[in-house]
């Protein structure tokens, strides 16, 4: 069966520090991968998605970037965190070639920028 991992689970970082969040998927090949951010009590904001290694699409302009160095690895990064980057970051995957397919979410990383 497929599983999706995210780490760390929680993170507290000072403003201006770098960020690296990692997501890995097991049990499937060539998944579509997604990064979402969720502010407290709010909906899901799609940040990036990837249909393959090295292929990244950005949905909103922001202080963050994403990379996909391996088929089942998706990384969210920032060079300098802002207070507004605080939130709950969720990684998700869906089957290849069907971005309308069901998405399966990881447990998330709760980021607090102070």
């Amino acid at each position, binding site marked *: 069966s497929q599983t999706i991992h995210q780490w760390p689970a929680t993170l507290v970082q000072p403003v201006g520090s770098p960020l690296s969040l990692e997501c890995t998927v097991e049990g499937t090949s060539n998944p579509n991968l997604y990064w979402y951010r969720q502010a407290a*009590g*709010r*909906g*899901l904001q*799609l940040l990036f*998605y990837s249909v393959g290694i090295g292929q990244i699409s950005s949905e909103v302009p922001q202080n963050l970037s994403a990379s996909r160095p391996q088929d089942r690895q998706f990384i969210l990064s920032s060079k300098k965190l802002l207070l507004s980057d605080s939130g709950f970051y*969720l990684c998700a995957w*869906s089957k290849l070639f*069907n*971005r*309308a*397919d*069901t*998405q*399966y*979410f*990881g*447990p*998330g990383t709760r980021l607090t920028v102070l």
Partner: protein
Amino acid sequence: GQQVMQIPQYQHVQEGEDFTTYCNSSTTLSNIQWYKQRPGGHPVFLIQLVKSGEVKKQKRLTFQFGEAKKNSSLHITATQTTDVGTYFCAGPIAGNMLTFGGGTRLMVKP
């Protein structure tokens, strides 16, 4: 732009009361999906509806897909405290990308 909208944003109910959340799309959808996110957790897929007018049930949860395939609803009968969470609908919009509604947060008073 094209989007998926959900109402209400929040709903408080007494345990045992019914609850309904509504989802509307600006475009016809090939399918509609529903997810539940427990407090502190991540969204979990509940169900997918594909056919016009389709109705599916999961125990006390009833899901409907509108005849025009532009709206959907989730109805919970006799809510329990375990139903607490945020319910999201999602449909493929704009380039066949799954787009999530803003969610309805359900709170149940015991």
